[in-house]
């Protein structure tokens, strides 16, 4: 367990030092928010209808960048080999990476939410549901993303492969998170918890699966 914390702290410190997340991923996500506004012509009220969808599309793009960065840092300078030699349990390394990724993505989402509130003048409502959905979805994204991040870091043309591998897999996350937000915003009737429940299943399944599959990835590949 302390190994996982060790890896997480290292990742967060690495992020804090290099400021790639705050310096590059965050501005990128804000940029995309603006681009969508340009594309969808705010006057016609289109933005208001598509806010949660855009939010989660931007989150997915940002997570691809964040995950790619989190694992490319391990890939260069042969650090993957050092991790293998260190004797840390693969599941612990996986847990540490996922925890660090989740925190970073939650920060991105928080800033993004405020930006969307300002630019698209959305008044966020139903905090319990939306925060719950956001946390569960982000865990799922980080859980599946870490496995594909490790794969992408290992293969030569990995960075272009990561979106192709990860985004189709995250389709259900995109659907459920968006619908969950729509319900939270009151733009859609019906209970919100089923969406959160399905997200919970997705995250739980892929977190356990990731922990199991990280061993062969680290050992052999």
């Amino acid at each position, binding site marked *: 367990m302390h190994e996982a914390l060790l890896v997480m702290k290292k990742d967060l410190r690495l992020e804090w030092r290099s400021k790639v997340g705050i310096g590059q991923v965050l501005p990128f996500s804000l940029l995309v928010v603006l681009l969508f506004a340009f594309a969808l012509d705010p006057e016609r009220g289109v933005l208001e209808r598509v806010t949660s969808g855009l939010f989660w599309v931007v989150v997915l793009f940002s997570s691809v960048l964040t995950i790619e960065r989190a694992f490319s840092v391990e890939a260069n300078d042969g650090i993957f080999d050092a991790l293998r030699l260190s004797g840390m349990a693969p599941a612990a390394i996986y847990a540490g990476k996922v925890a660090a990724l989740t925190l970073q993505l939650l920060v991105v989402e928080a800033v993004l939410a405020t930006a969307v509130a300002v630019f698209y003048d959305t008044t966020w409502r139903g905090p319990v549901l939306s925060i719950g959905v956001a946390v569960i979805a982000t865990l799922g994204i980080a859980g599946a993303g870490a496995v594909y991040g490790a794969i992408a870091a290992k293969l030569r043309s990995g960075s272009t492969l990561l979106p192709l591998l990860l985004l189709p897999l995250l389709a259900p996350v995109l659907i459920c998170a968006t619908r969950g937000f729509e319900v939270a915003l009151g733009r859609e009737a019906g209970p919100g918890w089923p969406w959160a429940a399905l997200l919970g299943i997705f995250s739980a399944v892929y977190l356990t699966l990731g922990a199991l599959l990280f061993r062969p990835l680290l*050992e052999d590949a």
Partner: protein
Amino acid sequence: MEHAVHLRDAVTLLGRFPALAGVDLDVARGEVVLLRGPNGAGKTTLLRLCAGLAPVSSGTAEVLGVDLVARRAGVRRRVGLLGHATFLYEDLSVVENVDFWARASGADVADGRRALDRLQVATRLHHLSVHSLSAGQRRRVSFAAMLARRPELWLLDEPHAGLDANGRDIVDDLVREAASVGATVLFASHELDRAGDVADRTVEVVGGTVVAHDDGGRSPDEVAARA
């Protein structure tokens, strides 16, 4: 005396390229063996194979009693590899790196700091981030990170490269000291004069195989006595 490294006709395929094309090599515990040979002969791959990082496509390979064909991950914890890659996070500081790698492998922070001192890494450098260090300093820090793990088998890929004279003396002392406490050292080098007197035995690596075996001036019983 069980061998630290026992390879018979070991082949390593990287993709379709046979980096190692049938290596026969035995290294006793406590022995210091120098790998000599032209670039691209397979020295680095041989070291990575012993570290359990390169696949054994065919043949038999046993390191520290672990059969690498069956489960090559088993040996990794007990092995120290120093390669051209620094194994260091560029954005973290010297101390943060060494602390992380020490604690990651179960050693404690003090081991890391002692290793840094052994490598004579000036304390003023401790809190600099690694990307602002010179190649030689970086090499000392990654050597320290390996030293902190107290590996049983040292696999050094051109340890002297990039080090100044003082640095090379330190490396030689560390190698001798490690061998004296029973660690086994396998290192590749091009500085044959300096490496010659550290090594018990010199082995020639050409075309992905181990070729000539001549004694590096140290008679076997001396090695046996010291192990």
